[in-house]
């Protein structure tokens, strides 16, 4: 605050700094850091593939054609074909919807569960804090991917369980960030002022604390998305999770892996590239979202 006061020509009485709209701020952030623009562009592409992909692809992602099996990339098959003659480009694009949905669903779930538990722990303290803290510690005590494997193996191979497992292993991260952020705001002046205005403790939590930690959580969600996609693909790769012949990046890499030694690299390469691009995009997006919501960068 001090930093600001010495730079800004602070007006004496009734002038105020002009406001900045979110849109012009977004333009400024992108122009300052083109990589953020790239990330937003990639995100739009992923979104498009997830929504319209299965309708727009040139071949049926499930239709096999043994006469065209194991063909390298060509103008007819941009990414080549696999051992059953399925078009890899169509399968990679069609898989976006499934992988993206798993990531979005698991991040939304963990945001609700972990975020709310963490905020309550940080705001109320006491036994709530102890319980949430111990649950998070217990989860952290396991190697996270092994824990996810265990959950899916125990509950059964289904998309719902992959979502659940991915959400559970991310729980400590969300709970701890939300706890720390709620804790520093618990005694803030505006929270005390709201107490004086007759707000109940729960209302304070929902109207004063939660809206103020949303920006930080938004950054976290964006960063976790990439990890969630990787986790879902990883589970499918080792055979837990989505089953063939459903197009999914992890399975496709797993299926293609055995063909790399015999020279058919494209079967594993293109789904792997798609996976890498998606994770890369979400990580960069996290930085962009942080720049976008950071009030320090508004002036």
């Amino acid at each position, binding site marked *: 605050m001090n930093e600001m006061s010495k730079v800004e020509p602070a*007006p004496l009485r009734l002038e105020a700094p002009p406001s900045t709209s979110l849109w012009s701020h977004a333009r400024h952030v992108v122009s300052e850091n083109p990589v953020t623009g790239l990330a937003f562009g990639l995100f739009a592409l992923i979104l498009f593939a997830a929504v319209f992909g299965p309708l727009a692809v040139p071949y049926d992602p499930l239709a096999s054609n043994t006469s065209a099996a194991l063909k390298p990339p060509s103008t007819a098959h941009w990414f080549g074909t696999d051992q059953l003659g399925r078009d890899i480009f169509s399968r990679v694009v069609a898989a976006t919807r499934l992988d993206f949905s798993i990531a979005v669903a698991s991040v939304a779930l963990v945001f609700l569960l972990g975020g709310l538990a963490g905020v309550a722990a940080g705001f109320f303290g006491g036994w709530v804090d102890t319980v949430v803290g111990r649950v998070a510690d217990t989860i952290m005590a396991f190697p996270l991917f092994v824990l996810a494997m265990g959950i899916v193996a125990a509950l059964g191979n289904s998309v719902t369980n992959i979502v659940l497992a991915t959400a559970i292993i991310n729980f400590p991260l969300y709970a701890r960030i939300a706890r720390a952020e709620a804790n520093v705001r618990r005694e803030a002046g505006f929270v005390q002022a709201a107490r004086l205005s007759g707000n109940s403790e729960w209302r304070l939590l929902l109207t004063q604390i939660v809206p103020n930690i949303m920006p930080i959580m938004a950054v976290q969600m964006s960063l976790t998305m990439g990890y969630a996609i990787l986790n879902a693909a990883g589970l499918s790769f080792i055979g837990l999770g989505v089953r063939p012949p459903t197009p999914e990046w992890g399975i496709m890499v797993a299926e293609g892996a055995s063909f790399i030694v015999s020279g058919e690299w494209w079967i594993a390469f293109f789904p792997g590239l798609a996976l890498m691009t998606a994770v890369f995009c979400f990580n960069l997006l996290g930085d962009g979202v942080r720049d976008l919501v950071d009030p320090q960068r508004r002036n």
Partner: protein
Amino acid sequence: MTAQPLLDVRNLTVEFATRRGTVRAVKAIDISVGKGETVAIVGESGSGKSVTSYAVVRILDRAGRIAEGTVSFSGVDLVAASEAQMRDLRGREISMIFQNPRAALNPIRKVGRQIEDVLVQHVQATRATARAKAIEALEKVRIARPQERYDAYPFELSGGMCQRVVIALALACQPQLLIADEPTTGLDVTTQKAVMDLMVELTRERGMSTILITHDLGLAAAYCDRVVVMEKGSVVETAAAAEIFRNPQHPYTRRLMQATPRVGMQLRDLLPDAPAGAMAAPLNEVPNPDQAGAPLLLVENLVKEYPRPQAGSLLAKLTGRTEPEKPAFRAVDGIGFTVRRGETLGLVGESGCGKSTTSMMLNRLLDPTSGRIVFDGHDIGAIPAKQFALAPLRRRIQMVFQDPTDSLNPRFTAERAILDPILRLGSLKGRDALRARCEELATLVGLPVELLDRFPHQLSGGQKARVGIARAIALEPDLVILDEPTAALDVSVQAVVLNLLEELKQRLRMSYIFVSHDLNVVRLLCDRVIVMRAGRIIEEGTAEAVLGAPQADYTRELLSAIPHPPL
């Protein structure tokens, strides 16, 4: 002043690159500091006083640059100097002291070691001799038991002690120029006096030059030879300290002086349009507090205890040994007072005296350990703080917070903030009625209605203070607790806000409890004053009696520590 000044700033212009183009923070200013001279740069926030000093030692942040002008320091051109040359000069020839002493010290290094680091860095000592020299430096700034303090960490020292260590650091290498940027803001008035006396004495002793950057005209005039007044990046007046109070030339200096509360002036005198002393008399005679009848608030034997951490209690439990229990720390130690209707009671004391704890208990955000708080016949101290938010009496006790920025939810518009108490506790319904009430309140506190849709970061400090006041009076409470409501504001804004508070009190017939450390402000606003120290009431009486003819030694000490300009 000698013919060749030590520091000569000519035509200095500093620009900052921002989103909306370049902003000129400092516009073509000239300042010179002679050898052994103490110069104050005075101005309100945004006047460019700090930026000027940062430009001199070239520690502007990345967006800022020196656009024009020269800075010569004993013949060396500082604008053209290389970064390596500057690094050598900083600390050895030019030292700086910053506002928050605790932030300026490394929290995990012993203070003695930190002084050693500076000495060794600038080849004033070797590792072998550094310890003795560091202790000597601590001795010079009059830290008691320097041998022991050498091993102290910053968190173990008080704010005043930390600032002394910072001064010891700054003076360790015998620099020729000391730049002190608000060195005592945030310190108690008695500590401020001790630190300033020490700083001025040490620099005079060594023939050093000093630049004191401050918003406090009184402090500047009391301790400096010359005063430079800055406004919006320009120097508007330069004069000898004694001269500037007696005969201010520039209208801005006059306005600034007028807005600074002093002995023997009235609240209205602070405002620029009132002739000094003219409107004083009627204002203070009209609102005589209701002398008869039951008091609005009665506090009896109020105590707040905090348990002390029991050292080694786990070990004691394991070995079965029991240590004698340490007595709990008493933040508030059995105080009692009354507030009548229409009265303003000042609660005065230095940090740690328990005044904030008291105000938190009175507005029922904190539960007292024992004692009674009787508000209009109801024992509100008996209602737990957690339940009081929903109690019917909640609407009758409200508060204005110290920091207007911190006390507004960054995601609420001004309108939403002002309406919050009405939505929760009021009976008003319907969007139009609420909007109308909000506009009425905004008009009452002098906030332009078109600003109601703005968020806190789009408002200036004074506007945020008005939003906070509007929120506090939205339910027309009987008692408003004002917790240093102007401490974070510039003096000219403070003048307006204080007058506004007084006017609102009369119009809405409220009582105030005014918590403050600034005795000059208390004198202006309060009918009665309570002086607190270490959780107890030291002195109580009418404002004139306590501040005019204090009985307790401590009150006298507080009063004499206020910097008095040479008049």
